[in-house]
């Protein structure tokens, strides 16, 4: 869209102030409860400077870095969906008077969010949720408004976690589109620079107010090197060629029984996943019974209630629930929304209390080939 420019730490601080002045609520990474989470940023001081995260299947820990990088972590338990598709929200209220019922829609949300520090995989996750809530035959107006109002400042990854596999999913580590601004952090001798590029008119306008200086070839190549490093560090992978057919042909594979023996059906994976969108509703009344409300809240296909039909749940076994989740993510999502439902962020791997790894589950089914059971589990029922 335009030539990349350079800002320094002061510029980054100014960017946050500028967004606030323009009426945005700036959301971004910050350290809280021993994790890097997304929350309101008052200033640059709220960023997790000098922190990183250590991740493995079933393992997450933050630790101090040797340097003072601002964006030297990967992804944490939060994702931006908590702002665009909130965990709990009221859909409408109703009043009952003399047998008459008045249904009052919720007035549309008007908060204008600026997201600072959106990773490439997360940009893809947002686009995927757009498909669900605004690109279908019906439109979720609340989501649409939040989305249209949101300003997105992406930050390219210059390191990856052992749980990442965005390269396999074609979703990173370099942010290619879907942002207003994209930053790449360049840190040399503890001196900070951010290579910045606009991806929209809004972004270009912001840049104009920041007074950046032009970037040199060498700045650009340093940034590129950082991103390359993130890609090269990536040790996890998933083969996506023909994955839909692979899973659909193996719905009765013995591996589902094996994974079900470990899975606690705790729903962590669905809560942390940036694309999981399922919700349920709660109907409440006050003590007089004349005032009723309907609330929507995140739900998970791992709960028993999720598939409840009068008389019992359709998916009563953990096996069927894990199978539903994984085949939805990696196979039926493609039919429904034209892309995979997984962006390779690795959150479900990290935050699974027993360390179940979606890439390993795919590989197990792939390696065993279709229809045949794994010999080691021969006698299992």
């Amino acid at each position, binding site marked *: 869209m335009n030539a990349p420019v350079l800002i320094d730490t002061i510029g980054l601080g100014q960017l946050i102030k500028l967004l606030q002045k323009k009426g945005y609520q700036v959301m971004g990474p910050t350290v809280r409860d021993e994790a890097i989470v997304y929350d309101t940023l008052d200033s640059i001081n709220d960023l997790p400077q000098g922190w990183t995260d250590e991740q493995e299947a079933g393992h997450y820990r933050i630790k101090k870095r040797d340097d003072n990088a601002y964006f030297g972590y990967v992804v944490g338990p939060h994702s931006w969906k908590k702002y665009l598709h909130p965990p709990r929200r009221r*859909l*409408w209220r*109703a009043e*009952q008077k003399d*047998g*008459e*019922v*008045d*249904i009052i*829609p919720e007035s549309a949300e008007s908060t204008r969010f600026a997201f600072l520090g959106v990773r490439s995989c997360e940009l893809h996750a947002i686009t995927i949720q757009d498909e*669900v*809530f605004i690109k*279908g*035959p*019906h*439109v*979720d*107006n609340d989501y649409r408004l939040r989305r249209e109002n949101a300003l997105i400042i992406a930050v390219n990854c210059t390191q990856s976690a052992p749980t990442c596999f965005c390269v396999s999913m074609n979703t990173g580590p370099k942010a290619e589109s879907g942002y207003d601004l994209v930053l790449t952090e360049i840190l040399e001798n503890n001196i900070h620079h951010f290579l910045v590029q606009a991806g929209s008119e809004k972004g270009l306008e912001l840049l104009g107010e920041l007074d950046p200086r032009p970037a040199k070839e060498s700045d650009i190549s340093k940034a590129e090197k950082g991103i390359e490093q993130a890609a090269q560090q990536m040790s996890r992978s998933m083969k996506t060629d023909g994955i839909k057919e692979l899973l*659909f042909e193996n*719905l*009765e594979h013995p591996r589902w029984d094996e994974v079900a023996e470990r899975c606690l059906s705790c729903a962590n994976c669905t809560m942390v996943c940036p694309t999981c*969108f*399922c*919700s*349920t*509703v709660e*109907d*409440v*009344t006050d003590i007089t*019974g004349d005032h*009723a409300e*309907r609330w*929507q809240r995140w*739900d998970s*296909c791992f709960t028993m*209630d*999720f*598939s*409840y*039909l*009068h008389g019992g749940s*359709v*998916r*009563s*076994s953990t*096996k*069927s629930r894990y199978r*539903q989740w994984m*085949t*939805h993510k990696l*196979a*039926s999502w493609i*039919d*429904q929304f034209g892309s995979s439902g997984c962006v390779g962020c690795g959150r479900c791997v990290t935050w699974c209390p027993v360390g179940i790894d979606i890439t390993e589950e795919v590989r197990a089914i792939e390696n065993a080939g279709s229809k045949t059971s794994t010999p080691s589990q021969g006698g299992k029922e």
Partner: protein
Amino acid sequence: MNFSEPDPMVPQPYKVRQIWQETHDTFSLDLEPKGPSLHSEFAPGQFNMLYAFGVGEVPISISACSKNGDGWIHTIRDVGTVTHALHQLREGDTIGLRGPFGSAWPIDESKGSDVVIMAGGIGLAPLRPALYALMESRKNFGDIALLYGARKPEDLLYTDEFESWRGKYGVQVRVTVDNADRTWSGNVGVVTTMIPRVNFDPLQTVAMICGPEIMMRYAVLELRQNGVSEENIYVTMERNMKCAVGFCGHCQFGPAFICKDGPVFRYDRVKPLFSLREV
């Protein structure tokens, strides 16, 4: 169809014009829109989300258009919390309604063919508007058969209409029950046993089936053995459903969302999952 205006998640107020008992546990609700009618068109097979004040919302098929065309009739079995609250409604009460949603029975596609309708229990409710549509332009269709099964004679719906369906429209209505005492003089046995007892040309027949999954499985099997092709068999699927517009994720059946891709499906499109458990 696009219901983005008004908000597809917000119910519209409807008034109970009439409520009556169909059987010991099943009743019908005639609902009329309050204020200007938004749309009273629907396609046979579609359903509405009915909201009982403060209790909850459930998917219920449209079982007929209201007499004067302004509103819809729903036939509901009282099985749990929300359906019970709907059962308690009285004439003049207000409830919330969203819809209609979902896919329809293949009425136009059946022109020039014989039609076999197979229903189990409450499954006749979503099929009744299909029957009405067939009867309304009777000459466009060949032989029409309704094979209807229920658990007991007292569970049978719409029995007072059968004579007119038979006499006036020449529909071959065959009824059976699983269990009955000696006062019952009709058939006892599963609904599939009646297939050989009605006339239809298997090579030119469209079949529409709604009932418990197990009943539909046997019905498909039997029809296939009689030579009806997979592309001419239509079934319905039921799953938990919270939003009816594809947002909540609850009603997924493999790649399909029952609320927008269903509830009526052409059999060959759901076949791979149809016989699997816990999908």
